[in-house]
């Protein structure tokens, strides 16, 4: 019974935890610009992320070591420093974007400009990390994330044409705006296959003291949780494609995306959009900020843990304390939140290969995963994702340069 409860809780958490500023922004961009054409990118990204998240959970449950620990130990610090630096830089931009998402949500509702909200939001994030436990953050905040299911409800209300949806499952390249199309495709994949998810998820599994008996829970949470989470992303894409695309509205600012649900739900649709954006981004901001402290502490072998009192893990707590306020400065100086989001998602795609390659080694290392090593399907998915990530990385760099 308690296992069932744990699975249910885990799935709910992942729905809330999965959706972040990147998923919402890229899906809205994709739907408003290209209709259903980019559905395949969400589906593809989800399959990859389900497998990789399952692996990082399995690694943690069997070896009691996080992904970051394992990479550092097996590949040596001189290798680990590369994903570490890449991850911290990307986390910084993504955290800025997540804080921006919360600020925009507050601006939508109150009319007070988002720059004013940056520091109060950063303070709220910090306070929760300072006072809260891992369970509170994981379950409490993510439970609120269920409001994002509003997008799924709206999808059903709008009755999209199924053949058109099915056509979107096949990757196609449009005749015009190809560069923009590819840029968004890369950003979608970057938003879904985020390295922070793997580091965070495996650290969470160690915080929750998982062992081999939790492997079933892990599989269910990774598969169903991430699966449901991406249904919300699909919902955003479909609603944007049904509501904004026919009007000719191409989202290049959150204000435009905010109109998405008003057609279906009226005034409450507007509030629902703001609430979804705000809560999803707030939850993700907590995770990204914690993730930075995790990867840094684990890099140097410091004591770490959200369940510890700050004074028991002083260096760990200092990292998230300083980092969240630094990232908030990105918003204070008035960086455009949507542009920052798209940029950081594409950058995520660039650093993917270096994060995923270690999976191939660690998940086949009997010392870490024992008899629970990867089968050929899992290894196949990892190899495919590495290949995909390399292509994305190569494509993303010129696209970013073109993007100016």
């Amino acid at each position, binding site marked *: 019974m308690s296992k069932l409860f744990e699975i249910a809780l885990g799935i709910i958490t992942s729905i809330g935890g999965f959706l972040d500023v990147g998923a919402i922004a890229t899906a809205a961009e994709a739907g408003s610009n290209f209709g259903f054409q980019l559905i395949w990118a969400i589906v593809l990204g989800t399959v990859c992320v389900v497998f990789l998240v399952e692996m990082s959970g399995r690694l943690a449950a069997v070896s009691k070591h996080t992904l970051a620990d394992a990479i550092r130990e*097996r590949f040596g610090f001189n290798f680990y420093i590369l994903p570490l630096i890449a991850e911290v830089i990307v986390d910084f931009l993504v955290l800025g974007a997540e804080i921006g998402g919360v600020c925009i949500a507050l601006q939508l509702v109150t009319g007070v400009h988002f720059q004013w909200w940056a520091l109060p939001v950063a303070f709220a994030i910090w306070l929760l990390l300072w006072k809260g436990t891992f369970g509170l953050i994981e379950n409490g905040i993510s439970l609120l994330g269920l409001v994002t299911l509003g997008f799924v409800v709206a999808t059903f209300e709008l009755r999209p044409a199924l053949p058109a949806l099915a056509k979107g499952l096949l990757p196609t390249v449009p005749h015009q705006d190809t560069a923009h199309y590819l840029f968004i495709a890369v950003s979608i994949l970057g938003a879904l296959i985020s390295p922070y998810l793997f580091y965070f998820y495996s650290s969470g599994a160690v915080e929750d003291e998982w062992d081999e008996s939790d492997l079933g829970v892990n599989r269910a949470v990774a598969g169903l949780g991430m699966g449901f989470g991406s249904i919300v992303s699909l919902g955003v894409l479909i609603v944007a494609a049904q509501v904004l695309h026919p009007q000719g509205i191409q989202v290049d600012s959150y204000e435009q995306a905010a109109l998405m649900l008003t057609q279906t739900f009226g005034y409450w649709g507007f509030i629902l959009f703001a609430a979804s954006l705000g809560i999803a981004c707030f939850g993700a901001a907590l995770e990204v900020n914690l993730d930075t402290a995790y990867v840094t502490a684990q890099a140097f072998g410091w004591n770490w843990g959200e369940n510890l009192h700050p004074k028991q893990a002083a260096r760990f707590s200092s990292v998230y304390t300083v980092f969240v306020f630094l990232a908030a400065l990105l918003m204070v100086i008035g960086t455009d939140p949507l542009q920052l989001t798209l940029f950081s998602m594409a950058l995520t795609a660039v650093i993917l290969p270096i994060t995923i390659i270690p999976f191939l*080694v660690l998940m086949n*290392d009997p010392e870490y995963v024992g008899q629970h090593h990867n089968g050929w399907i899992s*290894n196949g998915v990892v190899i495919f994702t590495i290949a995909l990530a390399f292509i994305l990385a190569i494509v993303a760099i010129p696209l970013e340069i073109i993007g100016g």
Partner: protein
Amino acid sequence: MLDHEMSRELHLELLLGKLVTDSRGDRLGRIEEVRAEEQAGEWVIVEYLVGFAAIVERLSAWNIGTALLQLLGARKLHHGHCVPWHKLDLSDPEHPRLTCTIAELQGL
């Protein structure tokens, strides 16, 4: 005496990745792993693993590594060189040298 003692101290982590040449100056490969054993109550170094294959071995990814390399077209992946401790001269840690030739090493 003390000075002599100090100079005889060596940081293994700095030895990692150093190019090993044989007594004639031919290159053998880079040091990738160091093996230790307990002998008569103390832990001592017994051998050094040298060469690219040693990395693969260090990552205990031998099976998947060879499978992948074969997939990429590598016909035969020779295993790394195993250098016993007494065959490696570490008096200059920047340039470790074999005290024999590569051929003699393989004949061991």
